[in-house]
């Protein structure tokens, strides 16, 4: 047993602090808005130039001028604002965005993150990920703990090209929640039905507790 994609997104939603501005990455993070706890209001930033991102449109009302950073059609809210890309990354680089919830290919015990490139295989680009991890207040990574071969993606050091060094604060995986602390990772929580031994066995990184 472990968390599925929706359960990981629901757990990540508990990270959201009321009244903050948050950026959600592509993949599992896009599911997080479905699980925002009652009484918590967050404003979602889409780094292509929008604060106050609304849900996907109802069929027939799609607007080609209104998309999110994943190029999907979206909607606006009463408190939405639009701005250009330089302003958008100005607020990211300037530390105005409290938190980013992002996907990852690999995370290391010192908080290094790799999520943009597999040399020789996948050359798509970093998009806004490098700016986000360098600029936002807190970086939470949502990811599968192991790859399809069962090998750990939570490592002593990353093997893939880095997105940022020492930038990850918390990892939420299908197996549980870990924080990046002095000397390695600390287990904060186990996923439903996962034992500490199973989490440790799936983790290459140093666990300090």
């Amino acid at each position, binding site marked *: 047993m472990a968390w599925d994609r929706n359960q990981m997104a629901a757990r990540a939603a508990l990270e959201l602090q009321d009244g903050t501005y948050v950026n959600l990455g592509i993949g599992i993070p896009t599911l997080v808005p479905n699980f925002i706890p009652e009484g918590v209001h967050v404003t979602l930033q889409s780094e*292509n130039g929008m604060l106050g991102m609304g849900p996907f449109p109802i069929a027939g009302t799609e607007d080609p001028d209104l998309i999110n950073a994943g190029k999907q059609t979206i909607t606006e809210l009463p408190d939405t604002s639009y701005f250009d890309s330089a302003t958008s990354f100005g607020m990211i680089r300037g530390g105005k965005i409290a938190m980013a919830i992002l996907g990852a290919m690999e995370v290391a015990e010192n908080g290094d993150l790799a999520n943009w490139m597999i040399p020789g295989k996948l050359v798509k680009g970093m998009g806004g990920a490098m700016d986000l991890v*360098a600029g936002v207040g807190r970086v939470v990574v949502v990811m599968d703990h192991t790859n399809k071969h069962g090998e750990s993606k939570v490592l002593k050091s990353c093997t893939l090209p880095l997105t940022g060094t020492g930038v990850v604060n918390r990892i939420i995986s299908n197996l549980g929640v870990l924080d990046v602390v002095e000397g390695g990772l600390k287990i904060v929580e186990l996923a439903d039905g996962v034992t500490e031994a199973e989490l440790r066995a799936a983790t290459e990184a140093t666990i300090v507790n």
Partner: protein
Amino acid sequence: MNKVYGSAAEALDGLLRDDMLIAAGGFGLCGIPELLLAAIRDSGVKDLTFASNNAGVDDFGIGILLQTRQVRKMMSSYVGENAEFMRQYLSGELELEFNPQGTLAERMRAGGCGIPGFYTKTGVGTQVAEGKEHKEFNGETYILERGIFADLSIVKAWKADTTGNAIFRKTARNFNPPAAMCGKVCVMEVEEIVQPGELDPDCIHLPGIYVHRLVQGTHEKRIEQRTVRAA
């Protein structure tokens, strides 16, 4: 001075040459200068370098200039939606300089503001930082990034008056203002040109000082990822 031209080809007349650096607005296929890109393709000009967040898809956006091999180099943050791009890049026919998205936007903005370089934390400790000057400020490391000074800017706005004062619509604004600012000459395509006085001066997104030539046209505005929810 008349800034309004009758067609995209006329608006680009005398501005295009081989080997030039063109800054283009747009994010994905949203807010791209689709009419000017088609006119650049038809002009046959080649060995172009594009500063543009993305490279379009195979048959739309900058993708149409990749098909005709008119592009030598891309300065972009994300190029994942274009198979022909990937083929040309992996075979060494196309140069690619990856820029973090915010760094690319700021490089354009800086160039347009006469700023030749700036320091940023973005990319420190990654491939992006290789070969760049590192400098410490208040105990943190930053890298030097250069302003982009383009030979030509091509952008798309929603409405402009005949003097080039422009308004963008929703997230189609994206890279258009910084791209417009960083070119020696900026050509803008719009959905509607109006007379001075018809736009509220307090609501202009890009003042006409940045816009040298204007053309009105009909836009396809293709949607890349049509996503909907149940009614």
